[in-house]
């Protein structure tokens, strides 16, 4: 197992190099650059000489290979991509500010989704074809179908219309102001969690239905084990494998959903930061963030593979 993990970790390096080249290339292929986006802030008339001068100042007229090497080196030497071309702030500082915000948002949503979707999926499987099953299925279909941004705006409008209340506009960490943190995060977390839990609930239900019909579960019942014990220790453990796979795959979607919700609620996370950086063609920020997200995706995949082994001892990666 350790050898497998080490091998996978080593594979991260070429994957990240190729991915970073792709991201670097795509950003350069996009029309326009940071200079025109900055100088033409409100669409004012631009002087091409000024654009050229600013490009030179930012090092954008250096050979493209040199620009890549300079940025790649800054990714590994501890500078995490150097400085933002737009704000001139160190990207590590920007990330340190934005990452915890998004981590909180997605972590709350993921925990909430898992805490609700697995019991609900189990309930639906146990009461298959009856009203609890139908209710859970309806909730998960609606949750999966409704766009998060639309739902969020609807909830906001409802709160203002019925309660004359809107969430705070200024983000506070939970250690700074727990109440304001809760007030601001509650709606986006619920919206994100509902969307995320829709698939998890359906997969849990389907896996549980299948697991409950398996021989080892029937054997457990025949041996006289209690219903709860059979359910939690035997059926659920088998059913969790596809749930984990789906959860891992959807974590990226959770981050994607966070982007638009961060925008609506004015939450200063990496999603909003990334969108703004793309808009202003802040190459170094986009490249560094994209590389970080790719690393995150690789790490989640590795973690899921490791979890498989923990949940199902029959799975072996070595030899």
């Amino acid at each position, binding site marked *: 197992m350790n050898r497998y993990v080490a091998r996978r970790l080593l594979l991260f390096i070429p994957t990240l190099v190729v991915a970073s080249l792709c991201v670097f290339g795509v950003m350069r292929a*996009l*029309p*326009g*650059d940071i200079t*025109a*986006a*900055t*100088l*033409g*802030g*409100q*669409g*004012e*008339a*631009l*002087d*091409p000489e*000024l654009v050229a*001068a*600013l490009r*030179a*100042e*930012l090092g954008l007229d250096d050979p493209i290979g040199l620009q890549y090497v300079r940025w790649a080196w800054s990714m590994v030497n501890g500078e995490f991509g150097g400085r933002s071309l*737009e*704000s*001139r*702030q160190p990207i590590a500082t*920007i990330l340190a*500010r*934005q990452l915890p915000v998004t981590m909180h948002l997605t972590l709350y949503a993921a925990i909430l989704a898992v805490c609700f979707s697995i019991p609900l999926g189990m309930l639906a499987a146990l009461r298959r074809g009856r009203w609890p099953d139908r209710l859970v299925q309806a909730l998960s279909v609606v949750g999966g179908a409704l766009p998060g941004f639309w739902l969020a*705006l609807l909830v*906001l*409008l409802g709160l*203002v219309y019925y309660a*004359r*209340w*809107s969430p*705070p*506009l*200024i*983000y506070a960490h939970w250690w700074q102001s727990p109440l304001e943190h809760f007030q601001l995060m509650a709606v986006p977390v619920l919206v994100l969690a509902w969307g995320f839990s829709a698939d998890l609930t359906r997969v849990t239900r389907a896996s549980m239905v299948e697991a409950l019909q398996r021989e080892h579960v029937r054997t457990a019942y025949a041996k006289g084990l209690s219903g709860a014990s059979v359910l939690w220790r035997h059926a659920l453990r088998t059913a969790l494998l596809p749930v984990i796979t789906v959860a891992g795959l959807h974590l990226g979607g959770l981050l994607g959903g966070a982007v638009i919700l961060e*925008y*609506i*609620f*004015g939450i*200063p996370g990496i999603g*909003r*930061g990334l969108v*703004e950086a793309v*808009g*202003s*063609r802040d190459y170094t920020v986009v490249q560094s963030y994209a590389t970080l997200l790719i690393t995150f995706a690789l790490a989640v995949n590795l973690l899921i593979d490791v979890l498989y082994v923990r949940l199902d001892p029959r799975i072996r990666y070595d030899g």
Partner: protein
Amino acid sequence: MPLRRLITIVGVVLTLFVAVQLSIPVAAEQPRYGGILRLGNRGEVPVGFDPMRTSSIALHHVAGSIFGPGNLVMRCRENMYMVCPYLATYWTHNMDYTQWTFTLRRDVYWHDGTPFTAEDAKFWFDLAYFGASAKGKTRAPAYFKGNLGEIVHVEALRGQVRVTLAHPTVRFPEMLLDPRMKIAHPAHLMKPRIEAGDVSVSPLDIGLVGLGPFKVVRNDPGVQVQVRRFDDYWERDNQGRRLPYLDGIDYIITPDPVAMDLAIRTGRLDGGARGEGHYLSAERQEVYERVMGDDVFLAQMGGGFFRLAFNMLRPGPWQDKRVREAITLWIDSDAAVATAMGGHGYVTPGEWPGRRYAPYPTKLWPRFDRRRKEADRAAALRLMAEAGYKDGFEMTYLCRSRHLVRCEFLQAGLAGLKIDLKLHIVDEGGWNRARFSLDYDTQSGANFSGTVAEATERAYGRYSRNPDAYARHEDPVIDVYYRRLREAGRPEQRRAIWRELERYLLVEQVYLVPIAGSVQIVPYRSYVKGLVIPPEDGHAHTDFATVWLDRSK
């Protein structure tokens, strides 16, 4: 006393009493000190708060309070088209208008307590116009360099700064009126950094030390900027009271306009953000009026233009003047306001800077007379047939994605002339590249923020000299008009030349079709008093020095 005499006396006394009562002016509302104003801001403040780098309203909405409403001069608060002194008390010029000397105020301080000096003014002019170089690195000049005329050199004298220009520049103080030209660059803090090689140093890097009525006490990037009253600020109101009235302003980053609207309704914000997308549409305005009634004040400002400009340097049917005339006569500007401008706009044939200062009837040319629309359209069809394009042709239009509705309006409208308008839809990055090129047939063009008519040469002049011009042409006649404008001193003379130029551009040659100007609406809670709302240009008067809060009502 006879009764008649008594009645006369009583009558006279009563008349005098009423007259005296009527002559006593109603006491104006006295501004009150104190309070924190909470305003939305469209996005995170960009480019290290540097007004030399960008005209983004996300910066300038905040920057007015920190850096002040002007530079050496400012737009007068009572009339934004007039020049008022700001950091200079008065100015003089030599005989041929090539040298301007500004005498500076002596009571102006940077937020760190350092006096503002002629060295600061010189440093600012030099940085904006020439950029800077040190240790092999070069800083680009300010993006508004082109609006400063042709500066040869700047001298710091005792309490004065002298600017020498290459050509006679009669309107130099007016050219400095652009509220985007803010002084945010203290020489005592920035010069050493630049000389040490940090040529890209920004106001944020040196702690946001400004000259404006408020100083920054907190900047949470992406969340909020808090500014509080600067006690050493020099400006007074007309009663000699110190400005600003407010204790401070919290600018809260609200990227989503709907969330901003809801926050204003629930009282979390006192006023909205400025900027496209955040300005109210007709639908959003209707909700404000219905739900908030008198609790909200909707400030209106003229904004950018919607136009169709031809690329005359590219072959195509539009080379035929009859085709361009037909398009002009066909486009329905009133419909554009209603459908493509969100209901907020106005139609006008001209685009004179300060057009509201010198209004003139929009019936100057036939197509702006609504009653003649049917006749105009019949004439347009006839002109197309005469030009040999009865069955239409294909034409491209460079379309900014943020103005897609306008582009689709044009596309649908010109289909009536059987013109197949192909939209080249580009995001902001793409537009910023494509706008210099000759790869399309028509476009709307950039916004123009110049304050004097001759500066519009960048928008209407020849392409070879003005690569961001709206219409691409190489017409030398335009040069003559601009030379005459530069040489004209009297306002009425200048206005007459401008009208001639407009007629030549828009009627005689039809290089471009002005369709409509947009009206930008910003909501404020009605207890926000003393706002100076410019008739146009949302970048103006963002210092909020005269604003006060009347929460008693």
